[in-house]
């Protein structure tokens, strides 16, 4: 940005400069690891979305699950005739199918809770930053209070109280995570609020709401996107944790956490696949999201620019 001198002539001004999105894209793909992670994440999302059409079995449909197929080793043939490449769990569910269906739940829970928490936290953080004074103090003390509890503890207590189900898990994760967004937005908005363009916008006679949402908010997006990806990954692992502990999703709708918990008791008897494969799927999902998030942070943070 600084290499643009004020002596540039109209002629070289008319040369097409790459848009912010183009430069963002080329910078993002500079890192090989991030590119691979993004590709992997794309594959994972695609598999999860297409699960009903590419899996041999619907693990939620008890009519398709045969107990006689229980605990088959990877590569065995199921009673229905197809090959269980990743083996089956104790209830006779094909692990490949169960993992893809589990990914659907994990991603839904992660993204839904991430987006809702982002919207709530963003609004609260903006209000705090713009209102200032007592309102800000009260909001930020609530945020501090919330952040002093471990997120898993808050989610655990809420799910225990609310009961099982995807909607309840999402609610619990939103409650556990909104404060991270609120704190990030407030910190960024406080910096942005004192920048001269806000004063200039005031001098143009723009309304308060317009200044906050149209001028300040877009400038807070970079850290929000970064926190959003990292929090989505942590929401996914938190959901797996809750399900593993048995308070998350019911046995009839196995998520990755439920599958890992199911296989846990067979680990020592040599039937590693029931836990290991869902565990690997969870690991790859969370790691790829985090790697993408790391690269986003590097690209979007002006201080880390070369």
């Amino acid at each position: 940005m600084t290499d643009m001198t004020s002596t540039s002539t109209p002629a070289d001004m008319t040369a097409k400069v790459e848009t912010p999105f183009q430069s963002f894209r080329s910078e993002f793909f500079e890192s090989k690891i991030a590119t691979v992670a993004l590709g992997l994440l794309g594959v994972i999302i695609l598999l999860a979305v297409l699960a009903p059409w590419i899996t041999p079995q619907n693990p939620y449909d008890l009519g398709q699950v045969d107990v006689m197929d229980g605990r088959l080793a990877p590569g065995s043939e199921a009673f229905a005739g197809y090959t269980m490449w990743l083996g089956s769990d104790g209830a006779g569910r094909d692990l490949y199918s169960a993992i893809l269906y589990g990914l659907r739940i994990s991603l839904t829970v992660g993204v839904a809770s991430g987006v809702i928490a982002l919207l709530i936290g963003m609004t609260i953080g903006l209000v705090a930053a713009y209102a200032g004074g007592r309102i800000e103090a009260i909001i930020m003390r609530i945020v501090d209070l919330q952040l002093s509890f471990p997120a898993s503890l808050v989610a655990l207590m809420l799910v225990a109280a609310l009961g099982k189900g995807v909607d309840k898990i999402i609610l619990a994760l939103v409650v556990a995570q909104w404060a991270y967004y609120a704190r990030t937005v407030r910190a960024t908005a406080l910096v942005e609020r004192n920048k001269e363009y806000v004063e200039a916008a005031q001098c143009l006679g723009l309304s308060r709401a317009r200044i906050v949402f149209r001028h300040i908010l877009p400038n807070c997006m970079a850290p929000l996107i970064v926190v959003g990806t990292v929090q989505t990954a942590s929401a996914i692992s938190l959901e797996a944790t809750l399900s593993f502990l048995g308070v998350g999703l019911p046995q009839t709708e196995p998520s990755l956490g439920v599958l890992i918990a199911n296989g846990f008791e067979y680990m020592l008897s040599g039937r590693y696949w029931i836990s290991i494969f869902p565990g690997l799927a969870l690991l790859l999902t969370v790691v790829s999201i985090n790697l993408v998030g790391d690269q986003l942070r590097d690209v979007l943070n002006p201080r880390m620019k070369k």
Partner: protein
Amino acid sequence: MTAVLEVSGLKTHFFTRGGVVKAVDGVDFSVARGEIMGLVGESGSGKSITGFSILGLIDPPGRIVEGAIRFNGEDIAQASQQRLAGLRGNRISMIFQDPMMTLNPVLRIDTQMIEAILAHEKVDRRTAWERSRDALGLVGIPSPEERLRAYPHQLSGGMRQRVAIATAFLNKPDLVIADEPTTALDVTIQAQIIYEAQKLTKHTGTAMVWITHDLAVVAGLADRISVMYAGRIVEQGDTDDVIDHPLHPYTVGLLGSVPSANKRGARLYQIEGMTPNMLALPDGCAFGPRCGMRTAACAAQPDVEDVAERRLRCFNPQGLAEARP
């Protein structure tokens, strides 16, 4: 000529923990249609605070404690925020020092200019777009349609300041306050910007207050000059008179410190001492401790006097004989 802006006895004080900072302490001036008034002073002399006071943009702990700001006859010193928001960007606009900072980095130029129009007028976007384009053309921006689609970072500093000036003049305001608009630019661009501003004020009949620390800038631009020191105007008069025959020792010192080519090798003149601590101003004349012409009379606060067609706050004006017409 009728005065668009008439500031009288303006006092803006900041109530800090360390005490009351009298950033602006009794400032009077007026600006007529099509006139450019240069407000000159060092950092901390209160010149920017004067500008912000007119726009009603003084945040706590500061506030306007006294005085009147008559804009087209209406006193807006204590006007409501709604009233001021209606005036800002519409009848009064502002140009800021750093064009890198005053444009929102994530919004395109057209977005920012069009919303400045739509905030005050009910016109359709197409009309607003056309007016933005014409405004950019008026400040000498080549191919304005293309510039409108650009983001601020794609423009150079001079371009951005032109955009800021075009935006300030969009709604044909009666008054423009320019707060050091050329300080962040290099000298050749500075001259162009000054030229554009001068052309626009003559063209539209807008009154302008040009705040700067650079006497060389206002010398070629302003019709009248007000020199500020420690929150007060110490000398006010026609630009040529003030530049050619400064009366106040502070103005004399300011002009003396301008480097000039024909004094090569000689030691550059500088005003003795430091700008005063605004929390502990001297009892008498604020410039007294730094003034070479100090007499016993300076222990008292000098009042504004009309001397040789000028308004002056000094007991010992310099070179009065030559200045008298």
